[in-house]
């Protein structure tokens, strides 16, 4: 995800650092997803150890919406970046 542009002739260290950065990004997003969707979907009464139907449905939608939000924010940022290019200031 979020491929880093194909600059040729990176040193081994740079390549590994790039792979590490990508892994960190994905891990960070996953951890945020887990904690956010838990807060929004899981009933804190703990009447059972299994996920019930409501919670499962909520989780599936929560993940889908998190990704959609990710894409939307990306698009908005891109647009903002075009309107407020550093050259303007």
């Amino acid at each position, binding site marked *: *995800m979020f491929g880093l542009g194909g600059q040729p002739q990176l040193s*081994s260290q740079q390549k590994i650092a790039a792979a590490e950065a990508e892994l960190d990004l994905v891990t960070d997003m996953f951890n945020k997803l887990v904690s956010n969707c838990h807060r929004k979907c*899981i009933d804190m009464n*703990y009447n059972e150890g*299994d996920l019930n139907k409501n919670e499962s449905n909520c989780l599936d939608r929560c993940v889908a919406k998190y990704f959609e939000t990710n894409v939307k924010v990306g698009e908005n940022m891109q647009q903002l970046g075009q309107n407020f290019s550093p050259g303007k200031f």
Partner: protein
Amino acid sequence: MDALNSREQQEFQRVVEQKQMKDFMRLYSNLVERCFSDCVNDFTSSKLTSKEQTCIMRCSEKFLKHSERVGQRFQEQNAALNQSMGR
């Protein structure tokens, strides 16, 4: 991104393993905090009541199932996203 050669892959694998260990410790301590905060509210005794113990058991079971399910959906969404970006 350029593919890693086998020596680089080995080095990266070491990094990944270190991160996995750290991630596991983080998961564990977060789970303790979450289940303590959701389940333990009665301080008339210094021992966990049976009700609290049941709650903690369910809380941790449910959390693991929760993160497993989120992980599955995450992979699916990630694959779909990568496909739509043509990678």
